[in-house]
């Protein structure tokens, strides 16, 4: 099938039309001016021209006329924001297959296109990339993060702030891995870094483990005894964590850092879930540095939270209900 050429000076219109048709399976080129379009037509045969009537310099009809001199059977569709009977008549005289006033229905346009060019031979073949994670080759669609790719093959990279329903946040840094490209190695956050062809990933190398251990100990000082920290602590053999079990405050001072508990690791799952999934923003962060904390905003929370509380279930520390209890107490006053 021959490609389509869009000739449109308005960038937003041109780009969105091109994206939309490309997604529909067509091969699409574009030009912002008449002269540019004519140059493209010189170089390549097109199956269809979609032309804006008003263009700087050579107008749409003129472009079609000149294109026909080269390729007599070339079809054209005119789109215009300034429809008039006269221009419509002129267009038909030039033999355009249709004349669409803006704004037009994209489905209507696609119908016209498929009538002209025939149905698209749909071939869904998303581009894939291949990398090696812990000596195992894995092929994933382009745009997959290292974390997702690793999970695909059953490698569990630790993380406390990742959630499949939420945009990557990159805050806990536990998911850092080492990547190697040629001679160079680098530490990256696997929940954000996208897999590239030929990438070599080490998820448990020495520098990675060293970072995770310290991060766990730092978080332990804030939320001692929290289950995911206990689990990861045992996985990485941090002395002081595994023996403390579930006791929330119990003698957790054996790690490197003095315990100053806030019972929250500030992973932001609740805050982001409320904003991104529920669209409510009933809970948020205030303060910065170690003063940062999660709070329910009473104005919103008192209305929205009673029947939701979905964030309680995703809180890794289990501290959220007590934060919320404060709002309820306030509200009942």
């Amino acid at each position, binding site marked *: 099938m021959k490609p389509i050429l869009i000739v449109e000076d308005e*960038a*937003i219109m041109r*780009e969105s039309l091109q994206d939309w048709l490309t997604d529909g399976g067509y091969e699409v080129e574009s030009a912002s001016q008449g002269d540019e379009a004519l140059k493209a037509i010189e170089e390549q045969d097109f199956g269809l021209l979609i032309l804006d009537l008003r263009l700087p310099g050579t107008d749409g009809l003129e472009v079609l006329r000149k294109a026909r001199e080269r390729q007599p059977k070339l079809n054209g569709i005119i789109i215009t924001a300034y429809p008039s009977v006269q221009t419509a008549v002129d267009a038909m005289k030039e033999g355009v297959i249709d004349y669409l006033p803006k704004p037009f229905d994209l489905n209507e346009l696609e119908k016209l296109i498929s009538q002209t060019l025939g149905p698209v031979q749909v071939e869904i073949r998303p581009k894939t990339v291949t990398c090696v994670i812990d000596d195992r080759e894995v092929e994933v669609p382009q745009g997959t993060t290292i974390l997702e790719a690793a999970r695909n093959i059953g490698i569990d990279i630790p993380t406390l702030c990742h959630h499949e329903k939420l945009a*990557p*946040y*990159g*805050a*806990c*840094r*536990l998911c*850092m891995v080492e990547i190697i490209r040629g001679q160079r190695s680098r*530490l*990256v*956050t696997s*929940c*954000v*870094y*996208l897999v590239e062809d030929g990438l070599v990933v080490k998820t448990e190398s020495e*520098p990675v483990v*060293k*970072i995770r251990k*310290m*991060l766990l100990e*730092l*978080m332990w*000082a*804030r939320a001692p005894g929290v289950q995911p920290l206990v689990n990861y602590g045992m996985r990485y053999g941090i002395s002081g964590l595994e023996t403390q079990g579930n006791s929330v405050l119990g003698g957790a001072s054996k790690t*490197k*850092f*003095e315990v100053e508990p806030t019972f929250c*690791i*500030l992973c*932001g799952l609740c805050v982001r879930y409320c904003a991104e999934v529920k669209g409510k923003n009933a809970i948020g*962060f205030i*303060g*910065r*540095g*170690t*003063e*940062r904390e999660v709070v329910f905003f009473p104005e919103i929370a008192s209305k929205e939270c009673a029947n939701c509380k979905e964030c309680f279930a995703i809180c890794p520390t289990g501290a959220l209900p007590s934060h919320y209890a404060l709002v309820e107490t306030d509200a009942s006053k």
Partner: protein
Amino acid sequence: MGRLNSAAELEKLREEILTKRDPNKPCVTICSGTGCHAYGSEKVAEAFVENIKSNGLQDKVDIRRTGCHGFCEKGTLVVIFPEEICYLRVRPDDIPEIVSTTLIEKKVVDRLLYEDDDGQKITHESEIPFYKHQSRMIFGNNRLIDPTNIEDYIALGGYAALSKALSEMTPEGVMEEVKEANLRGRGGGGFPAGVKWETTRDAPGERKYVIVNADEGDPGAYMDRSLLEGNPHSVLEGLIIGAYAIGSHEGYIYVRQEYPLAVENLNIALKQARELGLLGSDILGSGFNFDVKIHRGAGAFVSGESSALMTAIEGRVGEPRPKYIRTAVSGVWDRPSNLNNVETWANVPLIINNGARWFADIGTEGSKGTKIFSLVGKVKNTGLVEVPMGMTLREVIYDIGGGIPGGKKFKAVQTGGPSGGVIPEKFLDLPVDFDELTKVGSMMGSGGMIVMDEDTCMVDVARYFINFLAGESCGKCVPCREGIHQMLKVLNRICEGESGDEDLELLDEIPEVLGDAALCALGQTACNPVLSTLRYFRDEYEAHIMKRQCPAGVCKALINYYIEPEKCQACMICLRNCPVGAIDGGKNLIHTIDQEKCTKCGTCLEVCPTRFGAVIVLSGVEVPEPVPQGTEVARG
């Protein structure tokens, strides 16, 4: 003034301005930058207006309130043209004398002149050593311009570079010129500006942004502030030229909340530029459209980080993004966004006017042009200095800065702000440029330069910066939020004499993890103050930890004040001044300090006459038993 529709019309306006100005007419310029403003420059300016009027000279003398001249140590600064007579530390009371002596009798007021170490008076500004050794390409016009009057900028050749770029050069040509000049970013990293511009221009998407980073936040640094306040058009002109090269039609100037005068002067500058058709649609009749908005920050240091700054422009909390994609490709609203610092933009008109080759002739192999430094700390002449890249630290600190006051010894200089590091005496002859500073473990940063003398404790310095960063960490990622907090606790323990060997280990471990794991540059470089002080002054850390000794005598928990009995003259001064009554003694009786009562405020040391020098600081040693009360002074 009407809209200018071509390069020729701009030139015509320039000629008109110059024709109506008499270069021989006396002009009193009063520095009204932040430093002088704090000294009361506004009162000085008012006094000039009043006195000139009462002497009937209002038509014969111009008065101009300018931006910062740089020699902030000696404010309020007044320079009288055309002779360029420079008066320092001018107070409102001095004005009648200046008017009658200098403006009427045409004589110099000696007592307000600069006096060098040999007592020699210097009349002209450019001959004062502080100014003489500088090359003020960017900053020099500050003293000649009233920032609220675009005519002053145009009179000095302003907007000629923009006019040249739009009428004689293609966007690609402008880009090539900046690349060839090898202009590197003045805000911190020193990334080549032209390369960044090209990335933005080539990134997909029609809408692109150009942004001025005026979120200057390093302790003691105020060069960007002074430039924006004093010469806003130079930054704006650079920005418009950059936008033309990149193909951007929208810009932002991100100014921190704490700079109200910069915002005020910028707003005036934007308005005047729009009225003249130097900003807005169809600039100078070229068909190029560009406009700019001012975005005021909300007072967070981290907002100077590019991705955090862009998040803030979008109207959200200024926290860095975790993405592995450069803001030049995907920045504000995921559109290509080119961010450069104030000083970087101000360099652009110079490059376009004079050419890349001219620019590249100044400086060193890898660092071209000049750099403005904020020279502060234990140095005689504090202020803003602009020097060619490659000048040595010694020249900056001694020739321009006048050396260390009070006969003290130089110990180190801290460059690059909180992410930078300290440089010890052995590197005083180091040429200052991006690469050389990095080699010795510091960085150029935005140009902060804090001089430290022998009385500075390097552990305390590290603690100061870590404390600053602990307060400025946004708290999003664990290593920065918790790591800096723990680092500060370690340093507090060391300074308070409560540290153990494990603290020395943590000093190595925490920075390593922070450098690798923090989300943004603030966290990644947060430990540099510790790393560089450890690198050159490890012995001081060890003295604190192992000997409970603060060699510089700064850390209160590790020092004691002591009166040497053989030197005490029993003059009663320290005894009377001690705020807690911790000094015993009397007339002719040797004074002693009651260590139990002493709060280590240091007053006794300060007030003890230098000719006696009886009060000393002890650290790491036992305080000798005091002489028995009632021991009389033995006078020889």
